[in-house]
């Protein structure tokens, strides 16, 4: 399936839960409603024609201070999916606000999401509902804040605590 057909399939099966779609340089993206995210992701994985069996990447973007996006939801969580069987790709995005930065976990679908989601929590402070091990991944437990947020001061230094060993 090419990207347009994949987007068409998602729209047909998920209806208005697909908020918008776009294609850029041959990469196709679907923005879905947070409430419909588990359904969208399991559709991507389990539909025989889609067959997205690999979660290539899971990351987030902070749109604070982004021109034209100041008023909208602050974060976007991005899922890069790939199908080994069909050799096609799709991006699924979900928008969440700062006050309500919670996204359902994808760990039951792809175990690799475990560390990806821990990293997103660590760096951006987006929480993943139902994650089996919601600790920080890169920084130590005593670290305060989420360093990849746009409002984290670039020159803030935290006291040397480090993890307990």
């Amino acid at each position: 399936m090419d990207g347009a057909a994949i987007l068409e399939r998602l729209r047909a099966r998920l209806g208005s839960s697909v908020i918008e779609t776009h294609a850029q340089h041959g990469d196709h993206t679907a923005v879905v409603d947070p409430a419909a995210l588990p359904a969208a992701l399991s559709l991507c994985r389990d539909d025989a024609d889609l067959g997205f069996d690999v979660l290539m990447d899971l990351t987030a973007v902070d749109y604070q201070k982004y021109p034209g996006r100041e008023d909208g939801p602050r974060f976007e969580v991005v899922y890069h999916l790939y199908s080994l069987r069909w050799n096609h790709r799709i991006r699924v995005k979900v928008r969440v606000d700062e006050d309500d930065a919670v996204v359902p976990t994808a760990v039951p679908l792809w175990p690799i999401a475990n560390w990806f989601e821990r990293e997103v929590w660590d760096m951006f402070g987006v929480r993943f509902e139902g994650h089996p091990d919601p600790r920080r991944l890169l920084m130590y437990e005593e670290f305060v804040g989420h360093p990849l947020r746009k409002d984290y001061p670039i020159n803030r230094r935290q006291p040397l605590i480090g993890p307990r060993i």
Partner: protein
Amino acid sequence: MGVGSFFTSRLDEAIGWARKYSIFQYPFVTACCGMEYMATACSHYDVDRFGAGLPRFSPRQADVLFVVGTISHKMAPVLKRIYEQMTEPKWVVAFGVCTCTGGFYDNYATVQGIDTIIPVDVYIPGCPPRPESVIDGLMKLQEKIAVGAQRY
């Protein structure tokens, strides 16, 4: 005993002389400086000429800690423990700008110089330092060892 068959020395000088040619290093290699460290250690530059050719991979058997590469906050307690595990006398070499000052990793994750955690005897700046700089640093360390100057 005839003339010329003995010489006198101070005991500490004799010990210092022996120590400076029997450096057992612990390479704490975390980043890209490690490549340059290996280049220095191998036959082309050959730190064995300075008696430092035998790295020990146990801190208990080492007396010079070579900190080679960026130290993150998460790695800092590990480095400190390695240092504490070394037996005295012990020396520390900061290899590369990341260990000296944090280098260009002026960010939330990186220790801004390992001297915020452990005492350092010789700083070798460079990104990465050339083997000549490393050997220069090693010779400066030997001078320090010979006179028993150390900071632990």
